[in-house]
């Protein structure tokens, strides 16, 4: 599936935000994520299903990417 992450296109196999976070190796702390401009709390990542062309914004600390 194709996503826009911080305005860059990315192909992913992730089905939800948690899987995407793992794929992107997001750190355990210091990350804020929004899907189509709605902030999604970490506790909800696993249940937040991704759809084709979702626009993801990730604010994360420097490490791991």
């Amino acid at each position, binding site marked *: 599936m194709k996503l826009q992450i911080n*305005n860059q296109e990315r192909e992913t196999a992730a089905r939800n935000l948690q899987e995407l976070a793992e794929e992107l190796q997001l*750190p355990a702390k210091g990350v804020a994520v*929004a899907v189509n*401009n709605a*902030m999604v709390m970490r506790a909800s990542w696993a249940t937040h299903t991704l759809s084709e062309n979702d626009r993801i*914004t990730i*604010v994360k600390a420097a490490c791991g990417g």
Partner: protein
Amino acid sequence: MLQFISHYTDRYTYLDSIRFALEGGCRWVQLRMKGATDDDVRPIAREALSLCRQAGATFIIDDRVALVKELGADGVHLGKNDMPIAEARQLLGPNCIIGGTANTFADIVAHHRASANYIGCGPFRFTTTKDNLSPVLGLDGYRHIVEQMRQARIDLPIVAIGGITAGDIPAILGTGITGIALSGAILRASDPVKEMKRIINITQP
């Protein structure tokens, strides 16, 4: 995504404004208390951090790198006259969000190199509150900057700031800008919580 920048009025305190924002659904808060001392800010920041933690919101503090480190806030926002981003990164380590104010693409490139995690880009229009020396960007300015970032493959989130009202938001997000920072609009509304909800809805069409 919406970043709320705390402010105050005769009726409401900084913490009131943060409570309103969180209650209205905002999950990214910046505490900005220009002109105050760290000792003035500390108790307010501590309370704000606790409110943000309860709400699951990201909490950053404007300018005060030492306080961010001391309190364990999620990050710091650095304006043009604040500590350089690279220096703050050394003090705060890799797990802290650092945002930097930019007026031009050149600023963004410099912030990106210095390890910034997001960009506050403005001013969108002339404001009386700050940064009056910087040229106004408007929608064309944002479009141009977003395109330059795409070409340079700089994938930092970029938040528009400066004199933005609710009615501007759809057009700004239409330029490819990824977020909006708002300050004044909330407390000026007769029902600040309702106003925050309305604005959040506008950013999430």
